[in-house]
C-alpha cells in the first residue's frame, strides 16, 4: 500500500513535469534559447561540476576593512574619533634632535620609536601609526612631540586637547580626523577628517578635511584638495591613475620621505599622465620604471631627488 501510494505520487509528479515542460516549451522561446545554449555547450554543466564554495563573508570583511576609512563617512561608527592626521618631519641629519634635546624626566611618559612600535594605541583610545624612522615623544597626557612622520586617528576628548609639537609649529586637534607629517625642513599637516589648528610663529591656521598645510622657514602654505595623498606612506601599494607627472613625483617624495627638487630650467608639462602601481618597491626601481614611462632625467642621492627633465 505504501509503495503504491509512492508510485502514484511519483507518476503524478512526472505527469506534472511533462505538463510543465510542455507549457514551458510552447510559451517561452527565450527560455528555450537559453536552454539550448546551456545544453549545446555543456558549458553550464562544466561550470556546475567545477563550482566551488568561497567564503563570501570573510571576503566581505576584507573588502570592508580595506575601505573602512571611507565607510566611516557613511556609517559614523567612529564618531569618537576627533581627527585623523599625518605629520612628517624630513630626515636631514637632525632626525634624532629631540631625542637628545632633553632627558626623559618622568618614567611614566613614553617615547615611541617607529622601528619597534609602528602601531600605537594610546591610552585615550587614539590610534597612531609611526613610520619606521620616526619618533614620537609623549610630553604629557595627549601632548606629543614628533620627529618623522605619523598618522593619527585622535579620540575625542574636549577637556584634554590633543597636540603634536613639530619643528615648525604645533598641531592642535579641534574635533575630528587628520594626518600630520613634520620635517626639519618643513612640517606638513594633512587633515582627513575633522578640524585641526596649526600654530606657528604666533599665527593660527585652521585646517578642514582635505586641507594640506606646509610650514617651513618661508612661512605657511595652504593647499586645498591636493592631488597627492599625504597619508600614502602607510600603504604597501601606491597606485596612480591618470595623474600628472608632477603629482606622481610629489607623492613618491612623500612616500619615501625624500626631498624633491625640480631643476630650474625645466618646463613643466601636463601632458604626462601616469597610470601604474607599485607594490612594496624600493625607490630605485620605482624611479627606473617611471623613467621608462617618461624618459625623465634625475639624480638620486641619500636625501633628495633632483629632476632635470622629462618628456612623454
Amino acid at each position, binding site marked *: 500500500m505504501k509503495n503504491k501510494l509512492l508510485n502514484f505520487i511519483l507518476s503524478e509528479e512526472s505527469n506534472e*513535469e511533462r505538463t510543465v*515542460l510542455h507549457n514551458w516549451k510552447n510559451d517561452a522561446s527565450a527560455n528555450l534559447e537559453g536552454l539550448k545554449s546551456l*545544453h549545446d555547450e555543456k558549458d553550464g554543466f562544466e561550470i556546475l561540476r567545477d563550482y566551488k564554495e568561497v567564503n563570501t563573508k570573510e571576503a*566581505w570583511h576584507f573588502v570592508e576593512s580595506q*575601505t573602512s576609512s571611507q565607510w566611516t563617512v*557613511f556609517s559614523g561608527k567612529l564618531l569618537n574619533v576627533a581627527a585623523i592626521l599625518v605629520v612628517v618631519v624630513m630626515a636631514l641629519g637632525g632626525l634624532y634632535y629631540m631625542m637628545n634635546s632633553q632627558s626623559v624626566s618622568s618614567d611614566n611618559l613614553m617615547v615611541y620609536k617607529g622601528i619597534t612600535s609602528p602601531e600605537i594605541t594610546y591610552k585615550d583610545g587614539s590610534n597612531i601609526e609611526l613610520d619606521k624612522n620616526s619618533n614620537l615623544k609623549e610630553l604629557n597626557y595627549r601632548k606629543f612631540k614628533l620627529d618623522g612622520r605619523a598618522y593619527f586617528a585622535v579620540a575625542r576628548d574636549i577637556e584634554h586637547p590633543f597636540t603634536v609639537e613639530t619643528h615648525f609649529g604645533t598641531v592642535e586637534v579641534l574635533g575630528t580626523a587628520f594626518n600630520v607629517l613634520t620635517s626639519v625642513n618643513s612640517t606638513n599637516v594633512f587633515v582627513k577628517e575633522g578640524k585641526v589648528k596649526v600654530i606657528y610663529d604666533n599665527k593660527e591656521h585652521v585646517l578642514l578635511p582635505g586641507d594640506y598645510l606646509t610650514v617651513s622657514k618661508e612661512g605657511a602654505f595652504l593647499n586645498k584638495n591636493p592631488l597627492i595623498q599625504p597619508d600614502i606612506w602607510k600603504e604597501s601599494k601606491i597606485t596612480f591613475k591618470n595623474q600628472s607627472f608632477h603629482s606622481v613625483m610629489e607623492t613618491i617624495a612623500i612616500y619615501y620621505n625624500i626631498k624633491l627638487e625640480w631643476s630650474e630650467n625645466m618646463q613643466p608639462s601636463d601632458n604626462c599622465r601616469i597610470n601604474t602601481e607599485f607594490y612594496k618597491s624600493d625607490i630605485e626601481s620605482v624611479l627606473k620604471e617611471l623613467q621608462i614611462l617618461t624618459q625623465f632625467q634625475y639624480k638620486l642621492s641619500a636625501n633628495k631627488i633632483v629632476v632635470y627633465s622629462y618628456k612623454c
Partner: protein
Amino acid sequence: MSMDKVRFKNLFNKHYRPLCNYANRILRDMDASEDVVQDVFLKLWNNSPAINITSNTESYIYTMVRNQALGVLRKSVSGSRFMNEMQQLSNHISLPDVEEAEIEKYQIIDNIYVSIRQLPPKCGEIFTLSKIKGLTYTQIADRLGISVKTVEGQMSKAFRLLRSMLKDLSPFWNVIVLFIELL
C-alpha cells in the same frame, strides 16, 4: 541614485561567489580568483562611489573581472617566446563586454549550487554523484552500499525539493527543465 554601503554590500554578496567561479574558469586557481574579484570590488568602490546598480553594472563588473583575470594569467604564464609575443599582441586587442547571457548563466548555476547544498546530506550526495559526477544509479548504489531503489527514491526526493526551491525564481525554470530532460 548613489551607491551607499548597503547597496555595495548587496552587490558584493550577490555576485561574489559567481564572480569567483567565473574568474576561476579562466585562472584555474581559486585563491588567485578571489584576489581578482576582491580587487575589482575595491576598485569599483574607490573609483565609482556613485555608480548605479543596473544590469550594466553587472556587465561592467564581469568585464573587469575577466580582463583582470586575463591580465593575471598573462603575467603568470612564462612560455616560449612565441607565446609571449602572442600574449603581448592580445594585450592590445580589446575584448567585448561580457554578455548578459553569460552573466545569467553564472547566476543560474549559483542558484542551483546553493539549492543542491540545501538538500539533506544523503540526498544531496546522491544527486551530486548522479547529475554532476555523472555516475549511473547502479554505480552510486555500489559505491554507497545501498540499493538502487534507495538511489531512485533519493533522486526523486532531490528533484522534488529542488523544484520547490527553484520554482520561485521564474527566470531559472529553464535549468530545472534541463535537469528533468537529462534525467
